[in-house]
């Protein structure tokens, strides 16, 4: 008895000892042998804000800094749209703040998006609230895009690259002082009468940080260029607020954050539905510690999202009930990772993460409607998706020239959902859905995927000016809840599913397998010139995707579109990114002038049918001339996009024409104030963005189908002050 009594104490003591030893690492006692003030001073060592290590910043990554984001924020309220200036980045058009980013031709869920270190679940059958829609360019401090091979610690459950979005880091005051500062910004874009503002404020002592940032934006429909006229269903309104509390002590840095996003409406020009409500609240905690043996980071979060779709005025409004579709998603998870410093400058990064999503998607009956009633259409009933990921990666510096990063990870994904029901259990109008619900309910919904990823990156620093990086990645993504569990086979019910903006209907597939990509890529970066420095980088890539989740045709729909079902196919994607910068001159009198250029070319092919994959960006590039002198910071930008002629015949993807857009912008900064002025699409060129999708809003109003026109000329004004 006494033996049993004493036993539990032993493991507990070990745990306490382990915890104590972990946290006590930096707490050495001070000795009297402290160096005197007369010591020899060494030159300062600069640790850059952008990470240099392979594990954080492969060569094929690009970062939009706070300064670059500031210059752009009066131009768009959509983070994904701003990223399109980076090589290899494109985006599926959507709502005004909800484009779906694509890296090297792989979009949406295939791209890992991490906002302040955490994933955000899509909570909509049309992906109207993607992760980047919870960020506002007005309050971001950094966006990093890894378009090439992604280290396993930044990947998981994705195929392509990674987008890392960070808000401002906590700051503290000097000893005995109080820090209070902030900024106030506003903007106006005349095309669509878009306006918005943001307030950021920090109050901090030596130990505590309290930060608030809030932003709001609102826009009417925009006008297309030339004779394209108004583009329907492009209005939106959105508010984001974040409150962050941080404290530092001898154990490390602790943060608590609360985010609240509210959008009363957002039109979607390329969907049958509009978003009529989205409210999402997240609470998160983060801990960071620096110890002799390495660094530790732990995060945890809980997010609750309430999302509603219906028709805004262009699509008929809700006076007669419209077609309500409600989604409720709760997500929770954690991430723990450690960088263990090894001898010789090597680093071992290990980590573990959990992401759990539970989703209910139901469409309430519409009074008096023969088709949408009398019951609630249950699209997803208590669906859940839980992912447990574990990774280890080792960065080694072999010598001055060679370094490698090798990583493996495992993600296990568990999915399940309950039984479903159509609007009615009898009647001709719902016959397809009645049969589909019966078949779905008779099937087993439980799925478990065990996925493995591996990444190898090798960097060769040929000289101070030239670096070469090779990489191979094996990456796996499990289907999302809608790809597996959307079950409706009626024309209308299937057209409510899909984030492609193509007007087609989509049906889920319980037999879908995870998609697996093998990618090889290389990046060569070379810089030169003393008086006129220049740099150029080239990134070719090739991906073979086994079981790529594409779509097969089930039937023609009466409105000219088609009904498709998600299906695994093999696919390949390949292409080339180019980026270069050249300083033309830098003198006190004439200021600093730089020429920057990027170009991306890529192809995506379904190997089973030989056709193009959907929404592959044609050859495109940007040429920008930047000039800074005194308080002025100006740029002239030329956007060049080739015609899109390789289209996905299965989805009836429209071709689009080539175009060139001219954008101008300047900022004047004076003391604590700044003014931005710019003109986008100066020549008011009519064009359709290649990945903009079909203009369903216009189609419903006029009966005429066209690709979604791009924004016409817009005069943009921004004002700001810091305090």
């Amino acid at each position, binding site marked *: 008895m006494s033996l049993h009594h004493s036993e539990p104490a032993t493991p507990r003591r070990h745990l306490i000892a382990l915890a104590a*030893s*972990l946290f006590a*690492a*930096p707490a*050495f*006692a*001070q*000795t009297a042998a*402290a*160096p*005197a*003030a*007369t*010591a*020899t*001073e*060494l*030159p*300062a*060592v*600069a*640790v850059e*804000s952008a*990470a*240099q290590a392979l594990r*954080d910043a492969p060569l094929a990554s690009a970062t939009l800094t706070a300064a670059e984001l500031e210059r752009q924020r009066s131009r768009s309220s959509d983070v994904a749209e701003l990223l399109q200036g980076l090589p290899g980045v494109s985006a599926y058009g959507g709502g005004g703040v909800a484009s779906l980013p694509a890296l090297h031709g792989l979009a949406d869920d295939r791209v890992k998006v991490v906002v302040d270190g955490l994933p955000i679940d899509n909570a909509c059958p049309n992906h109207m609230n993607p992760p980047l829609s919870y960020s506002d360019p007005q309050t971001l401090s950094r966006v990093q895009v890894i378009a090439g091979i992604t280290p396993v610690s930044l990947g998981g459950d994705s195929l392509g690259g990674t987008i890392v979005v*960070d808000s401002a*880091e906590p700051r*503290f*005051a000097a*000893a005995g002082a109080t820090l209070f500062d902030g900024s106030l910004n506003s903007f106006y874009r005349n095309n669509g009468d878009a306006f918005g503002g943001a307030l950021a404020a920090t109050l901090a002592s*030596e*130990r505590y940080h309290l930060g608030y940032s809030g932003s709001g934006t609102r826009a009417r429909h925009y006008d297309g260029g030339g004779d394209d006229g108004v583009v329907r269903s492009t209005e939106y309104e959105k508010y984001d607020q974040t409150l962050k509390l941080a404290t*530092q*002590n*001898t154990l490390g840095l602790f943060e608590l954050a609360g985010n609240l996003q509210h959008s009363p409406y957002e039109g979607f020009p390329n969907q049958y539905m509009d978003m009529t409500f989205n409210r999402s609240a997240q609470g998160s905690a983060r801990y960071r*510690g*620096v*110890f*002799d*043996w*390495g660094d530790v980071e732990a995060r945890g979060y809980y997010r609750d999202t309430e999302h509603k779709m219906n028709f805004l005025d262009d699509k008929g409004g809700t006076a007669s009930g419209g077609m309500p579709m409600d989604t409720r998603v709760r997500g929770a998870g954690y991430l723990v990772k*450690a960088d*263990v*410093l090894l001898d010789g*400058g090597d680093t071992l990064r*290990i980590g*573990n993460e959990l992401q759990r999503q539970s989703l209910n998607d139901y469409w309430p009956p519409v009074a008096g409607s023969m088709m949408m009633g009398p019951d609630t259409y249950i699209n997803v009933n208590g669906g859940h998706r839980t992912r447990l990921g*574990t990774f280890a990666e080792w960065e080694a510096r072999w010598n*001055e*020239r060679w370094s490698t990063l090798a990583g493996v990870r495992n993600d*296990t994904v568990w999915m399940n959902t309950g039984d479903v029901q159509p609007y009615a259990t009898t009647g001709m109008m719902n016959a397809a859905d009645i049969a589909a619900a019966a078949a779905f309910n008779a099937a087993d919904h439980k799925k*478990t995927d*065990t996925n*493995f990823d591996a990444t190898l990156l090798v960097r060769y*620093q040929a000289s*101070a000016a030239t670096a070469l990086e090779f990489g191979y990645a*094996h990456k796996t993504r499990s289907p999302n809840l809608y790809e597996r569990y959307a079950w409706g086979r009626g024309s209308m019910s299937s057209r409510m599913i899909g984030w492609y903006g193509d007007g087609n209907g989509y049906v889920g597939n319980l037999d879908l*397998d995870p998609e697996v990509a093998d990618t090889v890529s290389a990046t060569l970066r070379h810089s030169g010139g003393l008086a006129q420095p220049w740099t150029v980088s080239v990134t070719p890539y090739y991906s073979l995707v086994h079981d790529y989740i594409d779509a097969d045709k089930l039937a023609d729909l009466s409105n000219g579109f088609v009904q498709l079902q998600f299906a*695994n196919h093999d696919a390949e994607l390949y292409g080339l990114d180019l980026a270069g910068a050249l300083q033309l001159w830098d003198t006190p009198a004439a200021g600093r002038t730089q020429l920057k250029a990027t170009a991306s070319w890529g192809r995506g092919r379904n190997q089973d049918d030989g056709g193009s994959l959907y929404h592959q960006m044609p050859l495109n590039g940007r040429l920008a001339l930047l000039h800074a002198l005194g308080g002025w910071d100006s740029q002239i930008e030329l956007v060049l996009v080739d015609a899109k002629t390789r289209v996905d015949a299965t989805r009836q993807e429209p071709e689009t024409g080539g175009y060139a857009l001219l954008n101008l912008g300047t900022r004047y900064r004076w003391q604590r104030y700044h003014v931005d002025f710019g003109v986008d699409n100066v020549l008011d060129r009519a064009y359709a963005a290649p990945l903009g999708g079909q203009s369903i809003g216009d189609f419903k109003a006029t009966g005429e189908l066209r690709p979604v026109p791009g924004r016409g000329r817009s005069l943009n004004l921004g004002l700001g002050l810091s305090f």
Partner: protein
Amino acid sequence: MQAAPRAADDREAGVPRDPRRARRLAGAGLTALLHLAVIAALLRAGPSPPPAAAPGAVSVRLLPALAAPLPPPPTARPEPRTATPMPRAALRAPAVKPAATLAHAAPAPSAAASTAAAPDLTPSASPPASDATAAADPHAVAAVDDARIAAAYVQALWTQIAAARPSGTALHGEALVGFSLDADGRLVALELLQSSGNGLLDRLALRTVRRAAPFPPPPAAAGREFRIAFHFG
């Protein structure tokens, strides 16, 4: 990697796949293995042994800003100190400050320099001043040599510390660290002279110096006590 190839027939027929179970087990195995690795790494690193080069001798004052008032930051840039009184002739010798020498030797000491080769500085490469055999004014030549030796040593220290610096951080601040070496170049004292205002950055700065040690034995001309600032962000 998919642990087992998939049979297309299985997929079409909806037959439960045995390979999946194997994959699942393999996944569970790998997860368990990685968890064990994490725990093992933590346990191994947990007791945080002092640096092997100077067991028990390194002193660190943690977060002085939180514990006690900071010492006032030094304002004057001190000249390299020598162990012996400096000859008078040194005053007439051209001023060779470490920073100036470094500016030539390493064009951008604050820029990314992790790939910069460390200078070939070994103890034997630091001839004592008495070895100088110049003809005209042996005292002046000796002083100049001393300054050069000190500057070269300072550069070697800097290069070694810079190579050990963190990869990058989004946090901003500047920390000033002081440290002392013994005759063999081992770290005997390490102190935060000025906090960056962020405890994580202070610890990164201290850890960088600690991990960079041991250093080459300091020549007499270079002294034993040094200070180095870290600019983060």
